């Protein structure tokens, strides 16, 4: 078993909803509501869910771009919220980097590639210009670009190439963890495979840990070792990728898988029964009582709307659902 690099414990992030002249707080949007997970060294955790499930807020909390309402983040066993500013600057931020979804907006259009990739090095290290230049070339080579590309601007590249530049920038400081927020969803189909393969190669080469956020289940299955399924600010099912996709337990996971599996048009007699959920995800401002999924669940029972389901461990997998209680 690999060592745990980062652990999130009962993360909560509530945003206040204010009203009136005095901006009184009238309610809370519970974007992330009690989320726990671990990311192992050299492994990938996939975070799946639909928009509004709280995936990106979780990622932002790890990147310390959002202050949590409560909960703790442990990095190599140490509480990140107790780091001093200088500790954060030397021990945490350089080692946790990110690649954003949209390579058209994640780069300054007025900077050349060499400056984009060099920026983390200039800010965080005291290397000489010559050292930085050779490091930039090395990084470009690792992501499949060449020395001829350094003097160009982002607009001169295609989406896939830009995403490669973003990956090079994220790797500049030799991070331990890279947060990948929808790393391929803005790219074309034939380019996605190139980037996913590149990310996997880099992981193997540098023993990187990834937190992959995606709404596409197949992407997550391909990239991840373990998977967490999020619904309305909570993780409803968690497990090793193989097991979870072979034997999904939570009705929401099953519906998601059913919506993403390739079903060919079959002869009418044996039409495959797809699980179609009714309704939409409720507002996190006012989540349903009991199990948050009960308003859309095809297996809803009496107690689902009253009792919050406990966490049930089944082997390496766990699930929050009354079906298994």
């Amino acid at each position, binding site marked *: 078993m690999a060592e745990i690099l980062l652990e999130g414990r009962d993360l909560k992030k509530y945003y206040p909803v204010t009203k009136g002249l005095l901006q009184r707080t009238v309610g809370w949007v519970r974007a992330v509501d009690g989320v726990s997970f671990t990311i192992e060294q050299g492994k990938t955790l996939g975070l799946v869910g639909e928009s509004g499930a709280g995936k990106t807020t979780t990622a932002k909390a790890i990147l310390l771009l959002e202050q949590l309402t409560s909960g703790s983040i442990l990095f190599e066993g140490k509480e990140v919220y107790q780091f001093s500013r200088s500790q954060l600057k030397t021990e945490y931020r350089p080692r946790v980097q990110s690649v954003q979804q949209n390579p058209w907006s994640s780069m300054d259009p007025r900077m050349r590639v060499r400056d984009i990739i060099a920026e983390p090095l200039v800010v965080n290290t005291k290397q000489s210009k010559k050292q930085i230049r050779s490091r930039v070339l090395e990084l470009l080579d690792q992501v499949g670009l060449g020395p001829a590309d350094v003097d160009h601007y982002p607009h001169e590249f295609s989406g*896939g190439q830009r995403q490669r530049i973003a990956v090079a920038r994220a790797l500049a400081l030799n991070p331990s963890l890279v947060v990948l927020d929808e790393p391929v969803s803005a790219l*074309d189909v034939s380019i996605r495979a190139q980037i996913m393969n590149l990310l996997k190669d880099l992981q193997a080469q540098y023993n990187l840990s990834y937190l992959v956020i995606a*709404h596409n289940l197949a992407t997550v299955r*391909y990239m991840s070792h373990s998977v967490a399924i999020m619904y309305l600010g909570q993780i409803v099912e968690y497990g090793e990728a193989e097991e979870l996709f072979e034997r999904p337990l939570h009705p929401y996971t099953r519906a998601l898988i059913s*919506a*993403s599996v390739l*079903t060919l048009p079959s002869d009418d007699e044996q039409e495959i029964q797809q699980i*179609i959920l009714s309704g*939409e995800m409720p507002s996190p401002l006012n989540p349903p009582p009991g199990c948050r999924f009960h308003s859309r669940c095809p297996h809803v029972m009496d107690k689902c709307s009253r009792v919050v389901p406990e966490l049930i461990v089944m082997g390496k997998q766990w699930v929050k659902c009354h079906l298994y209680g």
Partner: protein
Amino acid sequence: MSKIILQVEGLRTYFFTRRGVVKAVDGVSFYVHEGETFGIVGESGCGKTVTGLSILRLLPEPAGKIVGGKIILDGTDLLELSKNEMREYRGSMISMILQDPMTSLNPVYTIGDQIAESVRLHQGVRDEMVKEKVISALRLLQIPSPETILGEYPFQMSGGMRQRVVGAISMSCYPRLLIADEPTTALDATIQAQYLALFKEVQRETNVAIIFITHDFGVVASICHRVGVMYAGKIVETATTRELFNNPKHPYTTALINSVPRLDQKDDRLYSIEGQPPSLIDLPPGCRFSPRCSLAREYCHEQEPPEVEISDGHTVSCWRRD
């Protein structure tokens, strides 16, 4: 088999820009039956949206021009209609759903007004009748409590509901042909499944022919009866959805299918197509896919392959199809 409602023959749409002629659609032919969904699948820039806009004759002028081909809808060549006649066709005979409902709906009009607009324009009905038709369009798309929705604005609705409203507008006059350009790309997975199931029902009820433009093979598999795969302005392969997945013949089709991770099987490594699609201003000689094709021979780089029907309804443009 039901009758062919739309026949596109050798359609060529070019954009005349300062940097040169962009051959966005360069000799595209296909047909759609009544009550059938024909998928056009391809990557961005392959010309699938321009094909849709060409059928509606809604190209950005003066740069975009249809320079050749025929678009025959129920016996009439749309390219020979005057501008006014074409206006009559849009909305009533052909309609379109775009990708992003937030930009295709007007934020300052109510849902009722926006659906009523096309009903008034094309069906020549007034007042109470309009309201009735609007409500029946909302019902067709299974929008809950249509009477209250009428007075709401787009911002009050979720993305999935908005896209249903867009569907209601486009179906309000019961068109013969619906062009859906990536209608589910902006939706979440479970909402997308809802929407696709809904569209199958709408189609069964109205017998509308649908051209479904997408880049997502999962969507193709679940809704399309037949598919055309587009690459750099041409349809390189056409077949029934089943045949295309089970027996793809064009190397581009095969590569695309293999480069998409599957949920029902564990892949250790995805197949990836090297390089990028060519610029439509400066197309490679010979087969357009040849610079990226692993099977390419010398002659592939020199001569363009003809479209050959290899079995009933399965056509492919490739020298190395065997």
